[in-house]
């Protein structure tokens, strides 16, 4: 026993020494992720990516979890995160409040909302939904809710009663069990449903497409670091491992993001539909 104590101290001292050497090389930045999933799920997706970034750049990104989307919004509006992965509407807000700069996004797809009804509902037109209940996952879910509600109200003048049911799956189930006449979702989540659910539903309508979620940087992060991070992410898309990690975010084909990708959203007047 007595022999182990000097060994343990030796190990402790050598560890502290190595950390102090590295601290000179590395700087730690914070990163926030929109809490579309529960925090554990988010960590599971993002931690391997952040480790990869650190390995390649020596820059440590510390993931800061937010309990809810409104908390997340408050935090990026307050400039809490050095980097943030947010939805397209958020970048409009973040740009305005803190001047966040989009770095990368999924260039492999576009984001649009879909409206589903039961196959046997007899509803064939958006107009038929006038005065009916429509299910949405949450008020501020971009494609499924914000875009769809704005699109139906602004462009089709449909008056409906929104029912928020937390998740996309719930939206589809509510439609299937006829709790609501229709439901707002996105193609990807519909595709994930079981065949009998999918088979019971049909897509009645799609919203115009927008660019998907960007990873943005606070302007206080030096341009050098911003560039370094952007390049490293883009470089991840070049190899199989990196792509598989990014696919879980989801980013099918990572590419550069510009603020101009998101400005078309402004015409939807989403702030009117945004629930704070």
């Amino acid at each position, binding site marked *: 026993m007595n022999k182990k104590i000097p060994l343990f101290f030796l190990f402790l001292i050598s560890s502290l020494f190595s950390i102090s050497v590295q601290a000179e090389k590395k700087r730690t930045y914070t990163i926030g992720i929109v809490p579309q999933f529960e925090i554990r799920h988010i960590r599971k997706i993002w931690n391997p990516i952040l480790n990869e970034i650190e390995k390649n750049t020596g820059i440590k990104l510390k993931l800061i979890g937010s309990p809810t989307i409104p908390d997340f919004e408050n935090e990026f509006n307050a400039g809490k995160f050095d980097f943030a992965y947010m939805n397209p509407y958020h970048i409009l807000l973040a740009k305005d409040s803190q001047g966040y700069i989009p770095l990368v996004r999924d260039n492999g797809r576009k984001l649009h909302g879909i409206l589903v009804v039961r196959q046997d509902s007899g509803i064939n037109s958006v107009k038929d939904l006038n005065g009916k209940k429509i*299910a949405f996952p949450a008020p501020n879910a971009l494609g499924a809710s914000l875009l769809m509600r704005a699109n139906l109200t602004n462009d089709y003048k449909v008056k409906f009663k929104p029912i928020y049911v*937390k998740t996309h*799956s*719930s939206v589809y*189930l509510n439609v299937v*069990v006829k709790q609501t006449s229709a439901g707002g979702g996105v193609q990807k989540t519909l595709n994930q449903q079981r065949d009998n659910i999918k088979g019971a539903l049909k897509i009645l309508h799609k919203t115009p497409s927008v660019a998907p979620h960007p990873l943005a940087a606070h302007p206080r992060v030096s341009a050098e670091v911003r560039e370094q991070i952007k390049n490293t992410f883009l470089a991840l898309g070049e190899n199989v491992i990196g792509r598989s990690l990014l696919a879980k975010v989801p980013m099918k084909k990572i590419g550069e993001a510009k603020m101009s990708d998101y400005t078309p959203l402004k015409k939807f007047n989403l702030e009117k539909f945004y629930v704070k």
Partner: protein
Amino acid sequence: MQLRFGIRKKLLLPLLLGQAVIICVLLFIWQPNQLEKAKQDFIQDQTNILKTLNPSIIQNMLANDLAELHTIFENSQIIHQNEWRYIQLNDPDHKQLYPIFSSKPKDTNTLLKIKITIEENDEVFGYITLHTDWKGAKNKELKNIYQLSIFSIFLFVIIAAFSFILQTSWIFTPITKLKNITSQISKGNYTTTFPDINSNDEIGELSQTFKLMHENIKAYQNNLQGTLNVLENEGKRLRAILDTTPDAIITLNKLGIIQSFNHGAENIFEYNSDEIIGLSIKILMPQDFANSHDHYMENFKNNGESFVVGKNRELFGKKKNGNEFPIDVVFNVKEINNELLFTGVIRDITERKKIDRLKDEFVATVSHELRTPLTAIKGSLDLITKGFNLKLPEQAATMLDVANRNVERLLTLINSILNVSKLESGEVNFMLEPFEIKPFIQNTIELNQEYAKKYSTTFKCTWCHDNIMITADIDRLEQVMSNLLSNAAKYSPKDIPVEISTSIDNGILRVSVKDFGPGIPEDFQDTLFEKFTQSDSGDTREVGGTGLGLSISKMIIENLGGRIGFETSIGKGTTFYFELPINKEK
């Protein structure tokens, strides 16, 4: 053949019945109850499980989060896949929220439907219907039930077997021992040793009682044997006495049938006992007496009057060859075992009668032969002293007077002897006639008053009943009365009168003659009425007399159907009396 249930089977029967009852109770009451209880427990468990889902269901219903609800139900179904066959969620409007596509399973006999309402603070959020299969729980319970049942039955079998062994050793074995020994005793084997049964219970007490009884019987048996021996010896002794006595001793039943006949009887009547036992006593009687025998027996049965019972009678018997002979008979009656038994002692008096007759004839002859010359002597003496008016010298006159008095005395004695002889031989004829007693007594007193004067006393009638009639030979009764009066006068002190009185008791008249003399010494009392008896038979005969008077008086009174007797007290006096029946009508 009648079925015999031994005590062992009877002891076994309740145990078997108990076994059957326990099996029935287990099968038809306990098992269904346990199963039903298990079913209710299962339902309660399932309900509780469903209730634990309630908060999350309510939360997700409020949030319209059907997906989460579906997840909850799907997960629950996976967890409870062994039991849950189908679960359904309906909203308060009964719209089905879960499941969407699967259909209800077919009913089976183990499928239970549980429906609960999801509610909180009286607000209904929906309904859950669960089809759950309790087959597993049921089988588990059944297994438990069967194990417990088998264990219970096994336990009871062990207990029953143990009880049976105990019962056998406590009850059956001692009872069998008792049975065997009592069976031997019942066969008369009293010498068997009684086994010890040392159980401290009723059987032990029974055994002790039996043992005591056995000892008592044994002791009683020994006593009985002793008594029998004594009786046998006594019987032999009595038989010896009976057989050696010369008198005939015969026993008869109430019908007069001969029951026993001793050697004496065989000798006297010349019958063998074998041939006469069982025949009527009449066979031993002369025809005329046999004819009236039945009448005597009837009389005895009705009012206890008997001719021969308790009295010595001289009768005639009849031998086997038909010869009649005089007998002296006395019968006694005893009640033995509620049966009257007459015992007769019969003596052949042929010889005695012969001697008596010879004696009487001798006395009569001698008396007659003596009286004739004496009467001639007295007549001659009377003529000399009175008839011829002779002047005799004084000395001669005195001598003649002595001669005269002695002749008179001899004549009186001979007359008395003749009297007795006649009475005894039955030659005296009694002239019976009714007469009143009081004048008779007064007359007798008067006649004898002169005699009283000779002894310086008087006869005095103290109390005589009037109008009392009796029937008797008045001369003979006067003879009796004179005898009693003269005796009283002889023994009465001077100047104290002899008292004569009558009394009546129950139709019988008693005439008493009382003197205040010295009384009769005890030695003479028994023989007073025998012939030639006087209380002062010594040399100094003050009173004189023949000693035959009382004997004659007794014979007369008894011939008249009465009784004579006396009461005496030494120094105070004697009362002689005779009793005769009073005539019923005057």
